[in-house]
């Protein structure tokens, strides 16, 4: 009997039973026999030379097993790699990009570039002993002048961070038609200009970062448990670049991870430090789990752009030219993919859902005395959307055309897809190009306007005035480049990402009919164990309970590029489909053999391989799994077992879109802003699991609201992080928010 496909239904998550009973296993929950504890001494200065470090008093403290400084590691461990050097290959000048690659070491050696950069590590029997000993390390510092502002860092006379980066410029990068855009703006009927700050954010996953390293003396192999969204990439980078050990001598395991939002993509110093230290200790496991204060000081921040926006338009509000110059803060040294965020993921989508004929974007990546900046929630694309939507509102203000009408007049028409941006925004420097494959922007806008009661807002405005409040309405339409990405476009030959970006999946149907999907993505809240099981259940006609999804361990999963860039469903999900298709192909050939039918006459429907037109001549997937496993009677040349692996390289990104509208009330006496309504109409195509997708949308909206109203990372002029704890940084709370109102339109890719 056929099992109803769970595809497209709000299936309850299979990972939840362990997480709601306290049975999850996060990094800090792991205890290993003989485990030791590492605590890192971090710089109190934002910019300083280290003239000497005396660890002798710390080393003599109770329970202390070792104290290491940057000098101890210098000859053995290389600087961390930068794996995405903004449009070209690392270390060179490619595609007009100059890269001065200044990356962190596992522990700083000669100088520090931000408050919180690690300079020494204490390893002790207990965390408390390690903390006590850390406070006994004596460092002589020679403080240096500090700059924290991304634009100010390039000014004449600003303190200099790196000798090889004059004026603190890490890179300059440009995209689009400079001459055409200049002509369009010069000749425009209406020109508006604005300096726009996209403030720096602290990502704040509630589970912080941590790692446990264990070296095995017998095999000379390292196992590293880490809070990583990208276990395979981490193994590769640590093996090939940092430690210089063979890749197969390192195993990386990501346990349950309590949120990441981009911050756990990167190759951090501590990942290698714990593994290296374990070998120094003869193989005792070394655990490090950061405090929240450390998380704020030493885990990547997001955003931090200062941009100059110039918009040319007609009097009717049609935008004819858009020019942007952005100073993007990279922090004191480059994180793993920091330069890729304000370039590929930002400048290349500055056209948004609009038919702007001329766009030009120049980006100056800067070094400052702040912690490194890298991907955070949307990574570059929200920064682009913010600028574009400011542009639309500025044009609306200047022309007197209603903001919604300005968007309508600028939307790409439905018949232009697949769409190639005329300014060449979507063309890699090697000529490879992606297209916006689909879109239908009008209905999402109209639906959102309807939901918020746009036509009646004047009444609400008047009603609010009577209560002494002012009503404000914010409107945003967007597209987002998701499902990253075709390898030849984004990889080294194109956008400069260090390798490729396909995804892998393996399916094994066991003798008992139970099925295991292993996949190269990494789930840290997205519910992959549920969503992928829905896909496999749909493909193979199985019950979801019979499918186990395994991920996040480099031993036992095929190489995969991990989870970020909204890629797991679009790319990983397709890898699972391709693996299932291979399983079905083999199942049909085996069934044809067992049924003495022609393989060409077979079809796979509802979990059975059957002869077309003769549904009673069929074999179930369970019967076929048994037959394939025992292998007593297989077609000539067929190997036993239903076990297939697929590697899927996507032909394009996906291009979801939508309209969000926020209504706020402002108290003019206090300045207090109360968000009273939030409407979101998103088009992500067909949802595999509406429960999970809507949950993702809720979370994304509230992080966006947080940035708009409350959040901001603040360094003072000395480089001290003023927003240094959760007491000082305003993560949104439940009581500050209204119930969000969601709806959708559905446009297939």
């Amino acid at each position: 009997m056929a099992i109803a496909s769970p595809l497209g239904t709000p299936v309850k998550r299979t990972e939840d039973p362990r997480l709601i009973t306290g049975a999850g296993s996060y990094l800090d929950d792991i205890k290993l026999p003989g485990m030791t504890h590492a605590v890192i001494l971090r710089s109190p200065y934002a910019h300083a030379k280290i003239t000497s470090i005396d660890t002798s008093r710390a080393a003599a403290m109770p329970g202390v097993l070792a104290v290491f400084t940057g000098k101890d590691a210098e000859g053995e461990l290389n600087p961390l790699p930068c794996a995405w050097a903004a449009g070209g290959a690392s270390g060179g000048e490619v595609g007009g990009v100059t890269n001065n690659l200044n990356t962190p070491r596992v522990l700083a050696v000669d100088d520090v570039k931000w408050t919180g950069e690690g300079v020494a590590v204490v390893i002790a029997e207990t965390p408390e002993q390690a903390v006590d000993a850390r406070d006994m390390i004596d460092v002589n510092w020679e403080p240096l002048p500090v700059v924290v502002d991304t634009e100010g860092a390039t000014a004449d006379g600003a303190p200099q961070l790196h000798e090889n980066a004059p004026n603190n410029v890490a890179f300059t990068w440009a995209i689009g038609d400079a001459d055409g855009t200049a002509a369009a703006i010069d000749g425009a009927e209406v020109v508006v200009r604005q300096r726009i700050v996209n403030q720096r954010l602290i990502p704040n996953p509630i589970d912080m970062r941590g790692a446990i390293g264990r070296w095995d003396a017998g095999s000379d192999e390292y196992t590293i448990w880490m809070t990583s969204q990208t276990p395979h990439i981490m193994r590769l980078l640590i093996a090939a670049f940092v430690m210089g050990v063979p890749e197969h001598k390192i195993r990386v395991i990501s346990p349950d991870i309590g949120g990441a939002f981009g911050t756990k993509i990167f190759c951090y110093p501590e990942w290698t430090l714990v593994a290296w230290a374990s070998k120094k200790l003869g193989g005792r496991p070394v655990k490090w789990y950061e405090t929240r204060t450390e998380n704020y000081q030493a885990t990547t921040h997001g955003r931090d752009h200062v941009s100059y926006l110039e918009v040319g338009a007609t009097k009717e509000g049609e935008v004819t030219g858009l020019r942007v110059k952005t100073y993007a803060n990279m922090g004191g040294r480059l994180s793993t993919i920091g330069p890729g965020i304000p370039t590929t993921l930002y400048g290349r989508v500055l056209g948004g859902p609009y038919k702007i004929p001329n766009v030009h974007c120049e980006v100056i990546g800067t070094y400052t005395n702040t912690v490194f900046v890298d991907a955070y929630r949307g990574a570059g694309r929200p920064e682009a959307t913010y600028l574009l939507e400011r542009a639309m509102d500025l044009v609306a203000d200047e022309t007197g055309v209603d903001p919604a009408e300005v968007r309508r007049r600028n939307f790409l028409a439905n018949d232009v897809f697949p769409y190639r941006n005329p300014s060449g925004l979507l063309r890699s420097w090697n000529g490879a190009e992606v297209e916006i494959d689909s879109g239908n922007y009008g209905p999402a806008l109209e639906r959102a306007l309807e939901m918020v009661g746009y036509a009646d807002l004047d009444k609400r405005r008047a009603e609010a005035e009577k209560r002494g409040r002012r009503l404000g309405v914010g409107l945003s339409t967007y597209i987002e480049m998701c499902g990253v990405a075709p390898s030849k476009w984004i990889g080294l030959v194109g956008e400069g990402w260090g390798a490729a970006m396909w995804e892998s999946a393996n399916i094994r149907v066991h003798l008992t009919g139970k099925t295991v999907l292993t996949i190269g993505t990494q789930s840290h809240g997205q519910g992959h164990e549920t969503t992928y099981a829905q896909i496999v259940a749909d493909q193979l006609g199985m019950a979801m309970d019979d499918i186990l999804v395994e991920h996040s361990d480099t031993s036992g999963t095929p190489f995969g590029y991990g989870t970020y860039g909204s890629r797991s469903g679009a790319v990983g999900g397709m890898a699972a489909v391709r693996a299932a298709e291979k399983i079905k192909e083999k199942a049909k050939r085996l069934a044809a053999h067992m049924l003495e039918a022609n393989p060409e006459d077979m079809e796979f429907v509802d979990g059975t391989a059957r002869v077309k037109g003769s549904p009673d001549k069929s074999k179930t997937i369970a019967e076929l799994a048994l037959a394939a496993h025992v292998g007593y009677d297989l077609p000539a040349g067929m190997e036993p077992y239903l076990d297939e692996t697929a590697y899927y390289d996507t032909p394009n990104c996906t291009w979801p879109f939508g309209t969000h509208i926020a209504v706020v009330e402002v108290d003019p006496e206090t300045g207090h802003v109360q968000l009273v309504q939030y409407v979101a109409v998103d088009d992500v195509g067909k949802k595999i699991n509406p429960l999970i997708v809507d949950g993702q949308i809720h979370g994304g909206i509230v992080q966006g609201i947080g940035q708009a109203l409350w959040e901001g990372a603040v360094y003072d002029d000395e480089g001290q992080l003023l927003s240094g704890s959760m007491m000082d940084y305003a993560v949104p709370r439940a009581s500050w928010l209204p119930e969000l109102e969601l709806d959708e339109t559905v446009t297939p890719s």
Partner: protein
Amino acid sequence: MTFRVALNVNGEAHSAEVEPRRLLVQLLREDLSLTGTHVGCDTSQCGACTVLMDGAAVKSCTVLAAQADGASVTTIEGMATNGELHPLQQGFWEKHGLQCGFCTPGMIMAAADLLSRNADPTDADIRHAIEGNYCRCTGYQNIVAAIREAARIGSAAPAGAEA
């Protein structure tokens, strides 16, 4: 210097020898291996460590282990009884009240405190009751729905295995 602390956790008597600086959350996680209670900050803001102590929600990172001497503590591990999920656990599962799950134990314990005082809370009551608990994944929307669902299922009774 150490203290001997005796307390009841999830209906079982426990004792441990602790340093004066040991926190209740460390006692639970490290001495009793009850790792369902999480630590997400160092300033008592995030609420991931919330447990019930003598029936009231407390942030166990802000309670010294010594202060819990003689107390009765309920953690997330004590919420299901005889393999049957507590209504709050059912509500969180049913309404997708969690994504990464890290804040979830603390959220559930804070909500248990609320429902023990108010069996039929409004959404505003719920949002106020979990104000001391951060979630970065869900935007709180489905957490509110989950607690509403738990109230509907009918958990007015005090939560868990209290002695």
